[in-house]
């Protein structure tokens, strides 16, 4: 009967499909356990790179430009800041796209009716686009990478492109996703089970080495669940257990990226629900530091526990994300100074994701599962990790200055823009931040408009503006 044969064929297809998917999952798991790398992922990424060649190269060029400048560009708004940077450097182009025309310099110390123009225009520019809000939005891609979520209304969608998109969609959701999902479940279960076993072992060297080993293996498996392709640079600087490892924060995946290469202890707040259960179980076997809500507000307690951990030679390096919030990986924001107050070396790490393959940034996704689903159905998660040489606090530095120094080093290495804004103040109550910065603005305006500069201007005001401004305008009158 044709019906049953059709049904039979369908069942056969499903059977082979399930076998294929499971085989791939098993292959990845074995790869992880035995720590062998058969190069499947790198070949896959190379293939994808060819596919996205154009867009990818554009991103890399943009970042290289940022890295080339002497200092990571300090984007702190309004008038003269960005302008003096342009005048000082020899480059014509700014390292990032600032959508406003260069304004001629204000005559210092001489207030006129048109003195407010630069202030007003700065505000208008920020209404169109501002660096801080942008930092909490996913990074803009120079070309579409075939994911629906990044389709910003690119106008010309031809049927050919739609076909490629559909094939990609099918591949990602029906071929990749089941494999990765199985591997991820296996990884989490393994994490739980090994944690439960190890927790019951007596204290001693065996327990310590076993927990390290299982930690690394589990995270390697989880990395394969995300098709994580990480390149680790400067591994000679890798964090040792006598200090604290700090890194920029983009996503919960940062933890997986770093744990694959080095055993770390995490520090964080205890969540509720199943995730909290996981946190508690694994803390019994691995030396993570979790705080509940009340404890995390007690700075002294936090510092004490961290200090105890650092002094214990059996415990692995602490991993901290001093920004305290997920940022979109193009900028780096203010660091909380807590970890910089301890008397131990800091091992800075810069993590840079390539968003063409899949955006790891945990931004507006309301929940962790939705975010993880997004990542498991991306093409791959591709990132670079740079281990920076250890830094210690100098005698004349306080914790805040030290934190800033570390932050600048990470920003420079990772090609990120440095914004001196506290990311927690994206929330409603940011009055203290606001008045601090507004006062700075007012001080600067006072000097520029009323009292005159206390130092000679950075460069002669006759520097010609970029040629793309309106032609034929005479710039020698203003």
């Amino acid at each position, binding site marked *: 009967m044709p019906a049953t044969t059709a049904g039979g064929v369908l069942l056969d297809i499903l059977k082979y499909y399930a076998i294929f998917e499971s085989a791939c999952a098993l292959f990845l798991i074995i790869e992880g356990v035995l720590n062998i790398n058969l190069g499947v992922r790198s070949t896959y990424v190379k293939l994808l790179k060819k596919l996205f060649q154009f867009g990818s190269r554009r991103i890399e060029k943009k970042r290289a430009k940022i890295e080339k400048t002497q200092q990571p560009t300090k984007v702190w708004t309004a008038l003269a800041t960005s302008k003096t940077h342009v005048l000082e450097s020899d480059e014509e182009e700014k390292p990032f796209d600032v959508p406003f025309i260069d304004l001629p310099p204000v005559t210092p110390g001489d207030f006129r009716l048109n003195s407010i123009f630069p202030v007003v*225009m700065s*505000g208008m520019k920020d209404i169109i686009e501002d660096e801080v809000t942008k930092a909490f939005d996913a990074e803009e891609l120079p070309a579409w990478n075939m994911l629906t979520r990044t389709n910003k209304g690119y106008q010309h969608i031809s049927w050919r492109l739609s076909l490629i998109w559909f094939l990609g969609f099918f591949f990602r959701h029906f071929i990749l996703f089941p494999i990765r999902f199985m591997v991820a479940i296996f990884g989490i279960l393994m994490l739980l089970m090994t944690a439960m076993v190890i927790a019951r072992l007596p204290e001693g060297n065996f327990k310590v080495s076993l927990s390290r080993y299982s930690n690394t293996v589990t995270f390697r498996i989880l990395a394969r669940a995300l098709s994580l392709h990480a390149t680790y640079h400067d591994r000679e600087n890798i964090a040792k257990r006598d200090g604290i490892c700090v890194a920029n924060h983009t996503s919960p995946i940062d933890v997986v990226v770093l744990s694959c290469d080095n055993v770390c202890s995490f520090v964080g707040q205890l969540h509720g629900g199943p995730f909290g259960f996981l946190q508690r179980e694994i803390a019994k076997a691995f030396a993570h530091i979790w705080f509940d809500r009340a404890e995390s507000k007690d700075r002294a307690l936090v510092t004490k526990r961290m200090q105890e951990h650092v002094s214990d030679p059996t415990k692995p390096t602490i991993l901290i994300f001093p920004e305290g919030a997920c940022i979109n990986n193009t900028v780096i924001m203010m660091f909380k100074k807590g970890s910089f107050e301890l008397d131990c070396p800091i091992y800075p790490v810069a993590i840079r994701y390539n968003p063409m393959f899949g955006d790891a940034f945990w931004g507006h996704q309301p929940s962790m599962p939705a975010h993880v689903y997004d990542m498991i159905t991306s093409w791959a998660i591709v990132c670079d990790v740079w281990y920076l040489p250890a830094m210690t606090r100098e005698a004349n530095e306080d914790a805040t200055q030290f934190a800033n120094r570390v932050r600048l080093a990470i920003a420079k290495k990772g090609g990120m823009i440095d914004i001196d804004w506290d990311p927690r103040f994206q929330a409603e109550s940011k009055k203290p931040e606001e008045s601090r910065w507004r006062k700075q603005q007012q001080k600067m305006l006072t000097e520029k408009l009323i009292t005159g500069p206390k130092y000679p201007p950075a460069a002669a005001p006759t520097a010609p503006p970029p040629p793309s401004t309106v032609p034929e305008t005479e710039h020698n009158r203003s």
Partner: protein
Amino acid sequence: MGNRATIMLDKKELEQIGKESGFTPNQIVRLYSRFTSLDKDNSGTLSRADFLRIPELAINPLGDRIVHSFFKNTPDDRVNFRKFVEILSVFRPIQKTKEAVLNTRENKLRFAFQMYDLNDDEKVSVAEILTVLQMMVGVNIPDDQLQSIAERTLLENDEDGDGFITLQEFFTAMEESDVDNRLSLRFLS
């Protein structure tokens, strides 16, 4: 991400807005994306708080004045997308080859004038100049010094000596100013 909202602008609206403002379709789509990302409660309109949620604008000494200019003649104190585009289009650079739509020199100067005109009565007094100065420099300069700067500024620009700077007098005062460059933005498309 605000990008999903790009689908909500239909072609006719796009054309209409393009004609009124002079923006290209790509520029309008970008502005719409920005508008929706500022519109936190998805109401299709922006409140003053929505604007002041932009950190750089909140700390701008003239931030409140800038925001006020968007809300000047709006019913129920909310700004819709068309108004948003209308005001921003004033800052498009003046192009020699195209006729200016809303981005005329007069409109640009009128916007700047509104920064000073605190009570919206179409003229600027010494007190208003003083208040703007206070916004700009905060507590760094004593009031009496600011007062004399304000008075000097008024005298320099008050042609008919009536103690106020009218819009016309403002235009005259700004004749030498490179208005187009100083009051224009480059809009990425």
